[in-house]
């Protein structure tokens, strides 16, 4: 089908566009994107065993196919309120091992052309963990720097 380009608008560059894929998740109504490359699996919230003596952002551990995986609270880490009950655990792969993160809901796979990335306009709060923001079909998505989060946890 021939594309009709309105006058004054540029023809989208089809061939050169590089697209990155993210898993869009919702945390307290905010849309957050995690690179699909980092995601191992998604599971329901089941039997998280709290580990005494650990900081509040470590929710506990779960048994993921015979492996003990820590579960982290992104809300705690990002300093978000905790009004919505998480329904899913997104298991990420990091250089320090697997980690589960609690999310409210899964929005879906969001494809973002690279040129749509904008630097994070915010400072303070959790901005150090948000590398970019991007306008998407679901609204403004904050792209999370997973490695940075895990590294800062491991380094205490």
């Amino acid at each position, binding site marked *: 089908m021939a594309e009709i380009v309105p006058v004054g608008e540029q023809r989208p560059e089809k061939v050169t566009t590089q697209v990155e894929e993210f898993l869009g998740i919702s945390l307290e109504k905010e849309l957050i994107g995690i690179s699909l490359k980092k995601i191992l699996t998604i599971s329901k919230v089941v*039997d998280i*065993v*709290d*580990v*005494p*003596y*650990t900081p509040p952002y*470590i929710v506990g*551990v*779960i*048994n993921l196919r*015979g*492996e*003990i*995986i*820590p579960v*982290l609270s992104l809300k705690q880490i990002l300093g978000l309120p905790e009004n919505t009950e998480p329904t899913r655990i997104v298991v990420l792969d*990091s250089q*320090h*091992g*697997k*980690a589960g993160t609690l999310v409210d809901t899964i929005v879906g796979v969001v494809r973002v052309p690279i040129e749509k990335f904008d630097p994070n306009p915010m400072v303070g709060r959790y901005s150090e963990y948000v590398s970019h923001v991007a306008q998407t079909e679901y609204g403004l998505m904050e792209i999370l720097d997973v490695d940075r989060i*895990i590294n800062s*946890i*491991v380094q*205490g």
Partner: protein
Amino acid sequence: MISDEMREIFNEFVVEAEENLQKIEENLLELEKDPKNEELLNATFRAMHTLKGGAGFLGLQPIVEVAHAAEDVLGKLRSGELSLTPEINDAILRAVDFIRSAIQRYDAGEEVEVPEELVRELRDIERGAVEEKKEEESIDQILERYGFGHLKGKPVEEILEELILLPPEERPKELIEELDRILTGGKPPPPPSEEKERKAEEKMLEIAEETKEEQKEEKPPKEVQPKTEGEKVLRIDVKKIEDLMNLVGELVLERNRLLRVFQKVQEEYTSKTIDELETVMSSLDRIVGDLQLAVMKTRMQPVKRLFQKFPRVVRDLARMLGKEVELVLEGEEAEMDKTVLEKLEEPLIHLIRNAVDHGIEPPEERERLGKPRKGIVKLSAYYHGDRIFLEVQDDGRGIDLDKVKEKALERGLITPDRAEKMTEKDILFLIFHPGFSTAEEVSQVSGRGVGMDVVMNAVTSFRGTIDIETERGRGTRIILSFPLTVGIIRSLLVAVNGRYFAIPIYSVLEIIQGEDAQITTVSGKEVLILRDLTIPLINLGEALGIGSTGIGYVIVSQVGSQKVAFTVDDLFGDEEVVVKPLGKIIGEVQGISGATITGDGKVVLILDLDGILKREMRGITLV
């Protein structure tokens, strides 16, 4: 021949030697392209040196001789006195080949002779360091003169040998004499003047004479072709073994689950097929058990590896202190987990030092006391149940309890009041208190600022226990015990405020029903009165921060050097659990040593009572 006792070490040497030989070879080849590369030269030198050391330790003289000669050549290359030529490279490579084949022959139980020729060649190269240039000229001239131009460029010794080996009628007497003169300090080129070197040369000439007969018949010494396949020792990345352990752990848990399900099935139905299934189940059960054991064994190493370091320690120490001490080793073949084994060297050295330094009396004193002059320190290993015990025992003076008490009072570790009531064991265990041993007191030997508390920490970190027995004038015995395997531990499953936890059973001394426990308070804190003991009582739920527990049961445990009681709501017996770490992201958590997954897939945390106690005691000095 390699004796059986040395076999272990030999096998290890083989692996290491092969690595070093490989490295040397690679480096030499690289050096041919880049002869001035200092880094490579250094690495090669070091590798050869290590090889020599290892062979020396095993008494493999031929290898030592060759490696030594090669090392010296490498040393001169390194210092720039020699520059690497392909000839030199060849010689070193031949040394590598020889060492390799010698190792194989030793491995096969054969004897190996010193390859005189090779050693001589290497020595010549090494000595040629200074003289080669000047000498070559004149020797070449001489050779030309006698019509032996084709021998030019070879070391004098080799030329001589060649000539000597000629049939008598063709042998140029004058030339030989002339060359001989060059070698033994005659005229033309200034020969090496050092006495030692000349002697060596003379010896070599003699050998050349001696060997000429044999050489005729034997011709080139037969070389055993290095075989690459026959490696008996394989180095495996620990990570791979850990993965294997993990998988086996899973398998064990699944088997347990399967057995449980099968039991139910058996209760519900009876049929021939189920009987058949039962046989399959039981053999599966056995195989999984065997597999588990086999995988565990890959991590096990004989304590000999640890013990063999100590005779030297004792010997040096005894000499330094002017004491006569014999170290007796027992049960060296007992095996334990490699990771634990490695970490035990330091604590054991400390205990042995203590025994020699503080335990064993000087010979004169021993004589006066009617003891043999020579003191005995015995280091032994043995199994008992699912634990391995290590003991350091001496027949020295024993620990003076009054002195210990005095010192503890002095340092404010105990109150005079408390000192009165302490049992002998309590007093003895004071030596493990971090504040007890200080650098200022003891001698240079046991001092070093390392106290018995370090020993205690090392031991408890591997779920080990420590016990100590002493008798004045008769000696001291320190007994360490460790779980045989680090991967699986027997644990007591307990409920605390509706949650399940596993407590390693080795730390449990005694379990008391809640209603039978005599509990009272001392300065606002709960204590358990157990017979004549007063034991601090910790509410496990409160300690874990998950809400107070009732007193269903009281678990009395030995935590490090002291007894502590914990309250729990309920008990569910003991079970073997596979310890899984919490991972890097959570990291080490004091008080929680890991987690395990139960047969029904639930995660249960394994408590580390020592850690919990430390948390509780933080800021509070010991009772």
